């Protein structure tokens, strides 16, 4: 049982929860995720860790309510409990001083991107962040991203905030104006697909963090399998980040509909 310490609603469907998980808070690194369960009959839901406070023994999760289980989690109030939290799972992001790193997040994907932005900045990179959302309300964690980025570009589909246009327009603008050594992208699979196609054109190495369907999250079920470089890989233990240019996004998009 893991207690909810605080809660913040980013938008109608996006909620931030700070959860007690002292062991995970101590060891987790950027890129790691957890599996949580809400209720004795609850589903196991993978969620990327957005932040942690080892001293307080808490981790931060940002959840988008898309189904019954995520809605249940978003409805939890401070003082209430998640039934289970296990992790940290997956492989941590490879953090190095690459030079200039473009971090590109869409919607709720900005939450797991934030620790990567911070770690890339700490490693000495110039960090340019591109945040995207359908509309102004769906741009989250902007202040936190700004605090660790050298430059931030905001894209909204409807132009209600930042620049009007798709995330790829923002990414292309950066790649055209300066040398980008690496791109990290987290967001809806369709967004990552187009970011990947773009960066492939410009030959910029790109990592995409995948949010696949999982049951156990430890390699047991294989529900999260994805084709990378023509080979089947398990997102839960070998990912969640893979070389975006090698990912079969069409298969991933198809499997996410199951």
């Amino acid at each position, binding site marked *: 049982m893991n207690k909810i310490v605080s809660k913040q609603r980013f938008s109608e469907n996006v909620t931030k929860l700070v959860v007690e998980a002292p062991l995970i808070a101590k060891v987790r690194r950027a890129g790691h995720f957890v599996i949580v369960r809400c209720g004795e009959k609850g*589903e196991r839901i993978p969620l990327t860790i957005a932040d942690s406070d080892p001293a307080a023994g808490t981790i931060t999760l940002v959840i988008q309510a898309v189904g019954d*289980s995520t809605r249940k989690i978003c409805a939890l109030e401070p003082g209430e409990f998640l039934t*289970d939290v*296990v992790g940290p799972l997956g492989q941590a992001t490879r953090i190095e001083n690459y030079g200039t790193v473009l971090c590109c997040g869409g919607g709720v994907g900005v939450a797991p991107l934030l620790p990567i932005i911070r770690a890339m900045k700490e490693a000495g990179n110039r960090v340019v962040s591109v945040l995207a959302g359908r509309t102004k309300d769906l741009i989250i964690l902007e202040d936190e991203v700004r605090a660790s980025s050298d430059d931030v570009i905001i894209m909204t589909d409807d132009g209600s905030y930042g620049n009007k246009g798709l995330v790829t327009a923002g990414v292309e603008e950066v790649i055209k104006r300066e040398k980008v050594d690496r791109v990290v992208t987290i967001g809806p699979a369709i967004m990552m697909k187009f970011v990947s196609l773009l960066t492939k054109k410009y030959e910029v190495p790109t990592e995409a963090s995948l949010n696949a369907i999982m049951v156990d999250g*430890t*390699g047991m079920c294989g529900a999260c399998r*994805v084709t990378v470089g023509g080979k*089947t890989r398990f997102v839960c233990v070998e990912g969640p980040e893979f070389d975006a240019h090698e990912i079969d996004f069409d298969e991933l998009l198809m499997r996410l509909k199951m």
Partner: protein
Amino acid sequence: MENYNESRNEAWREELRKSKTAKERNNIARVEMPQLDPAYRITCNEEVNQGINAEQAVLEATRCLDCPNPQCVTGCPVGINIPKFIKNIERGEFAQAAATLKETSSLPAVCGRVCPQEKQCESKCIRLKMKQPAVAIGYLERFAADWQRNNTEQEVPPMKPANGIKVAVIGSGPSGLSFAGDMAKQGFDVTVFEALHEIGGVLKYGIPEFRLPNSIVDYEIEGLRKMGVKFEKDVLVGKTITYDDLHEQGFKGVFVGSGAGFPRFMDIPGENLIGVMSSNEYLTRINLMSAGRGGDTPVMQGETIAVIGGGNTAMDSTRTALRMGAKRVILVYRRSEEEMPARREEVGHAKEEGVEFMTLHNPIEYIGDEKGHIKAMRIQRMELGKPDASGRRSPVPVEGAIEEIPVDIVIVAVGVSPNQLVPRSIEGLDVSRRNTIVVNEETMQSNIGDLYAGGDIVRGGATVILAMGDGRRAAQNMAKQLLGE
């Protein structure tokens, strides 16, 4: 090892042996396991084998000749004193029969249900040499364990005084539970770390309720708790805490029983289509997560379900699919029925329930619809060729004999590999090319002195009872090492 003759020479045993002639014992037919009717049982999740009653058990126990040199015990991976427990049943001392089981087995009610007794203890029974069916040792084991559970308060077995030495167990499946029970009896302070949210490992996520009810596993776990064993759920050793952290927390020995939970696929076209899944995924969703039975977790349903493979997991998957409402369930196995690794009983149950067997067939491709959902499988007919390394005749394709069968779901049950998560996290640990942990087969000790391992993480995919045997041997040897004996 147990001195079987010591108990055999007790007065009551001698008297019991003399109470009936060999002829009288020979004239009793082997008991048949009462079962739920196939038409009824596929509508529910109730246990298929209903268990024998006391009268049947006493009669069956009477068939045992109480041999001077019992061979059955050599077939038992945990060395249960089989004649002693059976003769206790014959004389009506059911509690003592159960206590005899508990001397060497932490999970008798489980073993009595899922052990392949026909390949182990019962395969050595003297009656087979007499051209008669073996004594139903498995049914008797189950009877004694169930009788105790249903008729007495759960008791703690005799335990040595606490020695204050902490040992850790990674994984709460059969090898880990067996190890934990034996170490607790020896006075050790045992903590079991489990990655999932339920204790029991494959006994919970893998074996279905209709073959092994969860309440039975939970009862055994409760017994271990009463013995002082501590359980920590949601802890993934190697991720949440490390092997080094365990040392810092004062653990002096570590047993790894993390299992073989890495599903194998066949690497054929279309295997990543929606509707193709591992048996691990299918069974975990249903058994562990209660999908389709009130749990929040979904599971795909379909009218026609194909299961690929010939082991117990394949049988469990076919029978689960029937119970989830599938109209047609096809088992596809590339060899013939004779080579199937599944227990005969499971094969028989699956057939009774209406599973169609397509032996000597192998899928070569799955075909999807425009939405990426599987709609058909292409099946290659096979024939048996020369024996392979395992001694079984290997299947070879019959040229041109390919057919397409419409299916809604395919469940791939072609085996599992060791889960590399734990072994990979321990620096310097000797791991084989198949990703199993390398141990001394006698002691179950790895190349790291305080680390022992057993079950599928060592064997790569075996049975509950072999895993328990490993846990037991590891406990004996680790205890000796830690106590400086």
